[in-house]
């Protein structure tokens, strides 16, 4: 079967991969299994082709120097050394502009593919990285819970192992459900301990007749992780479709100055183009904890984000599968309004969230928090992050937000409506 036909088939087989896992539990892995599966009805497949890519910025990105209130004197007064001069900012309108490091995102903004949700946070902000990131990932601000909002969606839909994939080194709580979890795939192919061969793991992954159910599940975990890894590697090797063939591929491994994020996103785009049935991808960029000498450090990070994201979005725009992808970018909190004595900022509260995609109605959403009406020196959130994630659950994953994010009165955002 030639690559194109195969890919078309894969795309159509969609969610049938779960069945393939059971069928193929005793055999080899890879695309061959998918090929053997029955087709799903066109409606199911069409809905399932909407995909979500979640970009986590670890460390607490300074939102005020990302989406900059350049015309506000209070901004310049609070952080004279850190503030950007109005002429250096990439203007979005008469009061807000993007950091000079985000020129690619500015272009996406002009093309109305970038939505900026302003002042996103939650009640009673927690300034611990750990706790606050947990709150965002579990979507439960009041008390700690053990599952992430995507993980609960995996539980609720009885998702197959490849439904959510993280290209982070460690599986984020976001993807942890109570009975299911996303698969964690390393960027540089599966790294088995030396001396442990794939064949051994493959042998451990076989279930036995009549063995206790939990023991069989333990075996299946090995099968699953080889399976998802194989799926990704096959996607990486797959020849580009005709739609995407004129594009240059970003190399699949981190070579020659690519940021880790760009590498992760390159893998995501390969998977999407090859029709891997993953619905949610999780990628990340760390290092935003800028307590000292913030400006050069954050600018470098934002540039990495910008390069990675804008290349990714351009690539996605070229294919039908890619045009059905939505990307969301968030961090656990913003920084304090006032700079500290080390030309940095300390842990703060609300910040902007980016939502990107061909189907996204570009523009500004929500309200920029005031720089003078502060909560003990911090911004007051104007949009609850659960409304952003709830919107994504509804519009991208076609799920009822209230089923997976509880105790919240949703005010969903028209992110996928007509452009404002």
């Amino acid at each position, binding site marked *: 079967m030639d690559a194109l036909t195969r890919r078309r088939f894969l795309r159509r087989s969609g969610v049938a991969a779960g069945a393939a896992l059971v069928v193929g539990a005793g055999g080899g892995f890879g695309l061959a299994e998918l090929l053997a599966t029955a087709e799903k009805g066109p409606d199911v497949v069409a809905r399932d082709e909407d995909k979500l890519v979640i970009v986590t910025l670890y460390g607490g990105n300074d939102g005020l120097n990302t989406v900059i209130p350049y015309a506000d004197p209070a901004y310049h007064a609070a952080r004279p050394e850190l503030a950007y001069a109005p002429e250096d900012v990439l203007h979005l309108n008469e009061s807000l502009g993007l950091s000079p490091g985000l020129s690619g995102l500015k272009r996406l903004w002009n093309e109305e593919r970038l939505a900026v949700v302003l002042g996103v946070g939650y009640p009673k902000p927690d300034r611990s990285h750990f706790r606050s990131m947990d709150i965002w990932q579990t979507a439960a601000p009041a008390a700690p819970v053990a599952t992430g909002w995507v993980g609960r969606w995996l539980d609720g839909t009885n998702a197959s192992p490849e439904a959510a994939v993280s290209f982070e080194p460690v599986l984020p709580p976001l993807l942890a459900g109570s009975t299911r*979890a996303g698969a964690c795939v390393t960027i540089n192919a599966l790294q088995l301990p030396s001396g442990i061969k794939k064949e051994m793991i493959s042998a451990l992954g076989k279930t036995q007749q009549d063995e206790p159910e*939990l023991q069989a599940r333990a075996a299946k975990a090995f099968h699953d992780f080889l399976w998802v890894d194989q799926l990704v590697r096959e996607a990486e090797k797959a020849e580009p479709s005709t739609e995407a063939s004129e594009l240059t591929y970003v190399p699949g491994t981190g070579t020659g100055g690519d940021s880790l994020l760009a590498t992760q996103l390159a893998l995501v785009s390969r998977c999407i183009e090859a029709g891997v049935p993953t619905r949610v991808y999780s990628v990340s960029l760390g290092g935003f904890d800028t307590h000292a000498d913030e400006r050069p450090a954050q600018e470098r990070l934002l540039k990495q984000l910008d390069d990675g994201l804008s290349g990714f979005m351009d690539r996605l725009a070229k294919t039908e599968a890619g045009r059905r992808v939505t990307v969301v970018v968030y961090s656990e909190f913003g920084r304090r309004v006032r700079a500290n004595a080390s030309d940095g900022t300390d842990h703060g509260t609300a910040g902007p969230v980016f939502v990107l995609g061909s189907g996204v109605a570009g523009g500004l959403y929500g309200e920029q928090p005031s720089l003078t009406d502060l909560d003990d020196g911090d911004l007051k959130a104007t949009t609850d992050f659960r409304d952003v994630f709830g919107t994504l659950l509804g519009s991208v994953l076609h799920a009822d937000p209230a089923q997976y994010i509880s105790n919240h009165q949703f005010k969903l955002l028209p992110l996928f409506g007509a452009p404002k």
Partner: protein
Amino acid sequence: MSDSVAMLLRRAGFGPTASELDAAKKAGYAATVAKLISPRGPDVAASLAPIPNLGPDPFIGSPMGQQRAAAVAKRRQQTSQIVRWWLDRMTVADHQATEKLVFFWHGHWATSIEKVSSPQQMMAQHMKFRDSPDFRVMARSLVTNPALIWWLDGQTNTKKAPNENLARELMELFMLGIGHYTEQDVKEAGRALTGWKLETRYPDAGVFLPQYHDTGKKTILGTTANFDALGLVDFLAKRPQCARFIASRLWFRYASSTEPIPRSTLDKMASAYPSTTSMLRTLFLDAEFRSGRYQLVKQPVEWLVGAMRQLRMRPTRLPEASTQRLLGGLESLGQVLFSPPSVGGWPSGVAWLTSSAAQVRLTMAQVIAEAAQPHRMTVEELANLLAVETWTDRTYSALKQASAPQHLLALGLVSPEYLVS
């Protein structure tokens, strides 16, 4: 039919060594239960891991500026110290059933240092688990314990602004179980718990300030009285439902996290309440437990400590880099001591059986196997070392492919047969 002595040791403790298993087989099932439940004399081996003396809380006197930063660093160091100590203690202790039960209580009264912050308070709570002779005493000492109060916002619970958080969890998660109380009972119980505050100087006991306590009458589960915190827990502990709830929780962690406790087992265990060791003895001697048809997945800490015991290693005496990789592995798997993910404690069963977890365990098994430097052995000898009864054909064929003893060991440690007990 399972080899029930081996199963008993696997579940009552963290993982029997080959010699412990031999001795238990010679002694027989009943004698082994008796020894587990009432070990003779002090645990001499456990004294190899003495309880750390942390000294005063570095936050006493509300330090500011540089001193505050130093206090934060000190707390971080002390947190690492108690986590390492507890892992070590589980590993070296001879009285394995005692250690396992303390671990059970930590998952039951799940309190996390991530919010509590104070290692002193967490250790004080930990000692309550060790020192309480029965459940009633434990409930009494925990409800006024600073770690639990802070964890569930009890210090903000006052007559003027009642807070139900602690009251709700007392009923739902700690003493009765969901469905055995009403929302009104929770509200009234919240009033009973008003007035307790904390002071960093006293990590062991909360401070009762009568001016914040609601002295009015409260009606809880149909009984009207002037309940206060201790009166409330005494009252709840006497409810028949409490005995049954604790019995079912023990079943859930020691026998099966998927099958409900059989009625006859429940009745017998509840009649042994409030002594939890008596309840455990009843469980271990029960035919349902002994049949071995119920299955449990080892939690990450159980898995690691069991492996360490069987290989005669100590998790904190390995080269520092290896220790850190193992601690990092526990974190990736989602089980750090003193840091349960929520008040509901740790998940069970299939939650530990994800593909990501399989990867992490494989990496940890490699660290363990490299440090263990095992001699060449047959797959049967490996089964004996790890107290696994039999390998399935699947695992047998995987093990047969290993060329070096450390690879054989690593595969054995991640095998489904070893993970499910």
